[in-house]
């Protein structure tokens, strides 16, 4: 949010002057043009044909690495300093710049294309009294445009008139805020009266004054002056760009903001730039390396001064340049060595890192095992720079609805009169696992049945057909006691609009079993009972709310019998049952806990017949109470309590909040990988807890599940502290102590260490308590307690709180966080976390668009982390280790040589070797390793999720590893220099001629070096594919080929001064002692490493070594994972009650004003593919959220009602 605001702020600053107020005159282009408002053309591209080269180069040289190489290049052209020819830097630099420029260029071409596509869309504009089709980009502020059904809104518009009654239009805002339900906008009556009258519209000369462009999607303030009157304008009268017009034939709108000034564009753009921890560490290391480089150069420069002082008389043969004394010579040498030793910070490092990340991102895109066939969605790595971070995740923050669950409720089981239905047993009485193949109950006897409903237990249908009175009463209750609305478009095709998916599932179950709720009026409910239409008189709805946890209806049957039907939480209903059902209660309780154990949401159902006279008197009192001026709520509650008494238990329902496939397995795998999963959901506590149990996050075996639901800061603090002390008594009452202090790039940050506790604990924390707990004074207490628990569930949290929780963990834990979600309310958290994952194909695109990775199913997360993440991390670490090793080794040799060449910045190797070493000779093998390496394959990765742990602990690449790497290369460089030195000292060729000359020595040293680093690579590589073999051997072959080529007669005769090494290869590499030296050098480089690694494996094998050893032993694939039978938990005493709505619609249902607008238009707004077809569509969720995150969760409850209110109001 902050970033968005700052972006907005920036934008304002950039503008020529800050716009205070916007004034627009309709149909007056001349006037509006005075203000120079932006036109509707958008431009997301950065360059054009001519600006590309300079701009792009300018941008690239802003990168520190590129600038550094430019600086080197400048040093190299100073003759007194130049220790290397210019081409050693120019060739790599040009290559790097070209690659980057090509990538930027192709990106920009794509942006141009999409810009052009959007800008060239057609829209009808009212110009000079007639409608003309214009391109979007030609639309200007103040124009009146006509939109038709299913058109995208062209710009931010003031709605003038529409085809619908009351000047309403319906819009879908999914692209804007992720909400898939339709929203209503209404024009002012005065403008709405113009209708489709083009003359009036073109004569319309209203003057609009409104706020300047901003990014607040939920707010708009302005006034319209028209016909001398002033009308105030708000968000309800504005259509924003990015919306789509639905169910509205046409509408006219006045353009307020166009193009870049629309709220959509003001909101867009990736505002957060994420970097991985490896990135940050690499930057720190590069700084260290620079310091080290300066240190080395200083040492050598001092050495040079001393040498010049002592060997000053060598000037007999080598006079100094004019005006250069020993000190100045040292100064020049410093810069010369900066050039020579620059390879410690190799330019190709950055390019290679990018290539590796890109490659690993492609693997994610290509993974068939993360492709979801049903929605044709492959996984997408939307950010290509975060891969290795996927291998280091410690905390996962997950949304619940749509992420863990499918948001589909199914009526799964029920208990009627002490008999449990819903399970299928085989002949031996063994309960069968439900699969796709399990035979479904045939509902064909019921023409009104919902074909998508499935149930497997035939005995329930038998019971219905046998007219078992309790079973009938059970379903009658379900058909009557609800606030759903039915709509019948064509005969027999019923569509229910339920307030919550639970209720929808119950009504649908009743429908399929032959008690079809068909329609309702405020006073009646008509249902079709076993084929016979019956109308019940609806007398009262005793509505649902969070305290009552139940709802009842009082109906009069066609026969005139008065009954009260009640459904609610088992705990609540049980207290109000007639003592006579105690026996049934026992049996039902058993069923209820069984349902709860299966993770089902349960409701208990009860009824009672009412006495006519008693009811009359109650009704009278009810009427009085509902019109009472004070204490109305209390009085009503009292009355409800009075009548909901002595009810008779009918049974219980078990509704499954369908988890996505493989969720619990995934969660188990992730927790075995020592990843902590926190669920952050906007749902109610019960629902969240329920899901916690059904997906194995919370378990019966847990020592305790703490619930924090305090309503004051003190209470919350106390609850947190109590929980903590219970988990770890020795931590005491005292204030939170901070056990560690970390320092990241000079910024000191406090760190909270992990504390180990005995036993497993869970923590459930409520949104309003969380608000207190997230306070500065308490956040550490919260974090500490929460981190001791294995599972944390936060319920009823706002989007902003989601982000705050993530920020909290990021701030005090040195851990990598991942947030996964599907809805617009998860955007803030996705942006806040180190890595954001969007579940695609669910609610809108908002989450996906702001995510770094997206895929269709939660279960792919384990593959993303345990396979792709782990491999990426491993590869990146191996790459960095090896890359630093090979460059340090390469460079340090120069350092040693300095002591034997008078610190004159003479290179050891041929300049061409220096140029090509990183680019050609060693580039592909290391790239091959970083793109193909895998320690064990994916199946073993799943088999042992513990393999993931080293990543979380940063074990493969850290400062220690880096230090080891430096030492290792120090050793190797000593070997690579001094073995050839000693072997060549005062020696000659086998024909007595020279072999200890500089050129032969250079060739020998560089060959030793190259072979040594190649063998080192072979040691590091765990996975030798044909490609790797090709790269390694190919590189060596290329080295020899190129060496012989550039040392050949031909090239010397053509470019005499550039290739002075003529004949060296031929004359040196035919010497036996040269090869013996090469062999000795390589063996000496490699032996200690092999011995050390072998010793480590023997003495302290890592998990990795063990698994690889096991793979080697079994030689084959891991044993197939045992088929996971759902573990039945019977010991539960927990209530499985959960119901996803907060406040009933009872008053709306009974009010005479309800639903003038057919609710069907709403349901069509959902794409049936987005949700599973035909199931009940949720409402309320994600409503009321705007990306600006300024809203509280209070509004969330309200907005789901807006739909109804919106129609209600105009009639008043």
């Amino acid at each position, binding site marked *: 949010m902050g970033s968005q605001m700052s972006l907005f702020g920036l934008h304002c600053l950039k503008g020529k002057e800050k716009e205070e107020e916007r004034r627009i005159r309709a149909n007056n282009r001349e006037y509006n043009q005075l203000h120079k408002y932006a036109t509707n053309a958008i431009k997301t591209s950065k360059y054009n044909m001519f600006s590309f080269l300079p701009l792009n180069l300018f941008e690239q040289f802003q990168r520190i690495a590129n600038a550094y190489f430019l600086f080197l290049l400048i040093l190299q052209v100073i003759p007194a300093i130049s220790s290397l020819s210019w081409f050693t830097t120019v060739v790599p630099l040009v290559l790097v710049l070209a690659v980057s420029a090509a990538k930027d260029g192709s990106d920009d071409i794509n942006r141009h294309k999409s810009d052009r596509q959007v800008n060239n869309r057609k829209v009808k504009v009212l110009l000079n009294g007639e409608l003309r089709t214009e391109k979007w980009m030609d639309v200007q502020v103040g124009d009146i445009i006509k939109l038709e*059904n*299913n058109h995208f809104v062209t710009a931010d518009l003031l709605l003038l008139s529409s085809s619908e009654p009351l000047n309403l239009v319906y819009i*879908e805002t999914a692209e804007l805020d992720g909400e898939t339900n339709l929203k209503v906008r209404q024009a002012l009556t005065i403008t709405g009266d113009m209708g489709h009258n083009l003359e009036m519209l073109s004569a319309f000369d209203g003057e609009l004054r409104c706020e300047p462009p901003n990014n607040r999607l939920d707010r708009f303030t302005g006034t319209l002056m028209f016909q001398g009157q002033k009308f105030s304008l708000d968000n309800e009268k504005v259509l924003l760009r990015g919306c789509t017009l639905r*169910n509205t034939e046409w509408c006219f709108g006045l353009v307020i903001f166009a193009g870049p000034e629309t709220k959509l564009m003001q909101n867009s753009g990736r505002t957060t730039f994420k970097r991985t921890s490896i990135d940050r560490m690499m930057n720190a290391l590069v700084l260290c390396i620079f310091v080290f480089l300066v240190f080395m150069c200083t040492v050598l420069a001092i050495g040079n001064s001393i040498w010049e002082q002592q*060997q000053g008389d*060598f000037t007999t043969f*080598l*006079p100094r*340049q004019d005006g250069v004394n020993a000190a100045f010579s040292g100064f020049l040498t410093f810069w*010369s060595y900066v050039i020579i030793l620059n390879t410690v910070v190799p330019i190709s490092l950055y390019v290679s890192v990018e290539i590796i990340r890109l490659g690993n991102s492609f*693997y994610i895109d*290509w*993974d*068939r095992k993360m*492709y979801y*066939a049903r929605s*044709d969605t*492959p996984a997408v790595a939307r950010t290509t720079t975060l891969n290795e971070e996927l291998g280091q995740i410690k905390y996962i923050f997950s949304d619940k609805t749509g992420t863990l669950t499918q948001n589909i409720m199914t009526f799964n089981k029920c208990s009627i009169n002490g008999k449990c239905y819903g399970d299928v047993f085989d002949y031996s009485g063994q309960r069968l696992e439900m699969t796709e193949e399990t035979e479904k109950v045939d509902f064909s006897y019921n023409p009104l049945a919902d074909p998508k409903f499935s149930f497997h237990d035939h005995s329930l249908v038998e019971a219905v057909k046998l007219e078992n009175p309790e079973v009938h009463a059970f379903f009658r209750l379900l058909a009557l006691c609800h606030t759903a609305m039915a709509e019948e478009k064509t005969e027999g095709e019923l569509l229910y609009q339920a307030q919550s998916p639970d209720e929808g599932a119950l009504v649908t179950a009743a429908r399929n079993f032959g008690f079809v709720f068909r329609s309702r009026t405020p006073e009646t409910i008509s249902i079709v009972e076993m084929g016979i239409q019956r109308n019940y008189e609806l007398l009262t709805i005793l509505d649902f709310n969070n305290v009552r946890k139940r709802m009842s209806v009082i109906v009069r049957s066609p026969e005139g019998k008065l009954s009260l039907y009640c459904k609610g939480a088992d705990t609540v209903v049980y207290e109000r049952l007639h003592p006579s059902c105690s026996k049934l209660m026992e049996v039902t309780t058993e069923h209820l806990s069984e349902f709860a154990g299966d993770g089902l949401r349960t409701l208990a159902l009860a009824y009672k017949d009412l006495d006519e006279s008693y009811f009359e008197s109650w009704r009278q009192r009810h009427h009085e109470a509902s019109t009472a001026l004070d204490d109305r709520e209390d009085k009503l509650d009292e009355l409800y309590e009075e009548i909901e008494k002595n009810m008779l238990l009918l049974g219980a329902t078990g509704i499954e909040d369908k988890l996505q496939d493989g969720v619990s397995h995934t969660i188990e795998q992730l927790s*075995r990988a020592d990843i902590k999963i926190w669920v952050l959901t906007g749902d109610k506590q019960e629902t969240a807890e329920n899901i916690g149990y059904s997906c194995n996050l919370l378990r019966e075996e847990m020592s305790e599940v703490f619930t924090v639901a305090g309503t004051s800061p003190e209470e919350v603090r106390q609850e947190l502290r109590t929980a903590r002390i219970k988990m770890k008594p020795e931590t005491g009452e005292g204030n939170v102590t901070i056990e560690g202090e970390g320092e990241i790039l000079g910024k000191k940050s406090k760190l909270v260490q992990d504390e180990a506790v005995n036993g497993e604990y869970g923590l459930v924390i409520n949104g309003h308590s969380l608000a207190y707990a997230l306070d500065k004074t308490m956040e550490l207490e919260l974090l500490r307690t929460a981190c001791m628990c294995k599972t944390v569930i936060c319920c009823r949290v706002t989007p902003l709180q989601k982000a705050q929780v993530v920020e909290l963990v990021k701030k005090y834990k040195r851990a990598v966080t991942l947030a996964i979600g599907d809805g617009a309310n998860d955007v803030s958290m996705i942006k806040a976390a180190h890595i954001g994952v969007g579940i695609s194909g669910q609610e809108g695109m908002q989450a996906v668009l702001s995510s770094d990775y997206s895929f269709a199913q939660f279960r792919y997360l384990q593959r993303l982390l345990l396979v792709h993440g782990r491999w990426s991390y491993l590869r990146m670490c191996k790459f960095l280790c090896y890359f630093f090793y090979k460059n340090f080794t390469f460079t340090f040799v120069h350092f040693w040589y300095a002591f*034997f*060449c008078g610190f*004159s*910045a*003479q290179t050891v190797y041929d300049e061409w070797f220096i140029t090509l070493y990183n680019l050609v000779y060693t580039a592909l093998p290391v790239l091959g390793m970083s793109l*193909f390496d895998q320690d064990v394959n994916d199946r073993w990765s799943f088999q042992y999720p513990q393999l993931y742990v080293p990543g979380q602990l940063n074990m493969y690449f850290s400062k220690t590893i880096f230090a080891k790497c430096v030492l290792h290369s120090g050793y190797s460089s000593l070997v690579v220099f001094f073995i050839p030195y000693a*072997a060549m*000292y*005062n*020696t000659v*060729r086998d024909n*007595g001629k*020279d072999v*200890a*000359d*500089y050129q*032969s020595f250079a060739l020998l040293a560089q060959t030793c070096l190259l072979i040594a680093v190649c063998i080192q690579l072979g040691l590091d590589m*765990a*996975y*030798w594919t*044909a490609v*790797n073999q090709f790269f390694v051997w190919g590189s060596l072959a290329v080295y020899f080929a190129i060496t012989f080529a550039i040392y050949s*007669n031909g090239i010397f005769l053509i470019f*005499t*001064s550039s290739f002075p090494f003529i*004949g060296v290869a031929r*004359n040196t590499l035919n010497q036996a002692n040269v090869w013996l*030296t090469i062999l000795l050098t390589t*063996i000496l480089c490699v*032996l200690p490493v092999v*011995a050390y690694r*072998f010793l480590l*494996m*023997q*003495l302290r094998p890592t998990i990795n*070594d*063990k698994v690889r*050893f096991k793979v080697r032993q079994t030689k084959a694939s891991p044993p197939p994972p045992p088929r996971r039978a759902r573990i039945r938990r019977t010991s539960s005493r927990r209530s499985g009650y959960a119901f996803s709505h907060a406040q009933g619609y009872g008053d709306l249902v009974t009010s005479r004003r309800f639903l003038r607008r057919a609710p*069907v238009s709403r349901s*069509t707004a959902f*794409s049936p593919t987005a949700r599973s077809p035909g199931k009940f569509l949720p409402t309320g969720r994600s409503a009321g959220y705007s990306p600006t995150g300024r809203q509280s969760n209070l509004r969330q409850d309200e907005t789901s009602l807006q739909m109804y209110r919106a129609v209600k109001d105009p009639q008043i």
Partner: protein
Amino acid sequence: MMASSYNAKEEDGHHSVSAASGPSAGPSAKSKKPDNTAFKQQRLPAWQPILTAGTVLPAFFIIGLIFIPIGIGLFVTSNNIREFEVDYTGVDASSPCFTCSQTYSWNSSIPCKCAVSFSLEQPFESNVFMYYGLSNFYQNHRRYVKSRDDSQLNGDKASLRNPSKECEPYRSHDNKPIAPCGAIANSLFNDTLELFYIDPNGTRTQIPLVKKGIAWWTDKHVKFRNPGGNNFNLTVVFQGTTKPVNWRKYVYELDTDPENNGFVNEDFIVWMRTAALPTFRKLYRIIQKKSNMTPTLPRGNYTLDVTYNYPVRSFEGRKRMILSTISWMGGKNPFLGIAYITVGSVCFFLGVVLLIIHHKYGNRNNSADIPN
């Protein structure tokens, strides 16, 4: 109504997402399912070596077993090489060249001569190579190394007249280009060494020294060429150039043999192949074996007659004369042999140590179950 709005949503949605892909082909569009190739699914067949006791330990033993014999062979070979070295710098007052080393001047026209006597304890059997060795002479100094013009040395006429800037300050003299230019050429080693055998009866016999065939073939025939191709009249060819400052003769006066004169003079070529280290030796002459019966250099007393021209005292350099035979592995250098023997032994020893460790700990750790 319902169906139509559903379609519209689909199309629009598609439209907006993949705008660049043009008009969408509707529901029959190609599936986005990734290809099932071993590469894309990261299932490329691979060889996965790991460091097990079964591979590491034998490797150590084998390396040990191979290295030790090689080392012994190298050591013996190196020891069989006869080498004799005499330092004639003249640092000590007692040494015969002391006077010469004191009275040195580049420009003195009278050569200073001195004779160093020495005796060989053992006869040198095969061809003997005579080297001059210099110490503390930084032929590998960066400015020194680059102070030459390869084009000029390759006979390029333009470079002959206008040598490369790298040659500064030895690029031109008296407004004439220097040929050969640069510091390397300028500091050409110009002592003359002659070897005499002193018979037991006192007669001095000059030992014939061959001065051709001491440079690399590629250097002599490709890298270094006189300007003007086959024109043997070098005086004409080098017309208009001057000699390097320190030289006493012009480059075309180095030898009388036209094959060995000018830039292709082998002493010059040898010198121009700069040494890698500040202590180095360069081939000066070859003493050919005459017959199988007599050794090339029988044991006995010798005198080395030195024409002392080359000043090294100022920077504490040293000049040596080395006589050496050679073998298949070149000159005498015991290092490789010793190194091979050492590395081989260490390998073997390490192998034993690792074997013990493996027996003690390895099995325990590797068979241990992987904790969950």
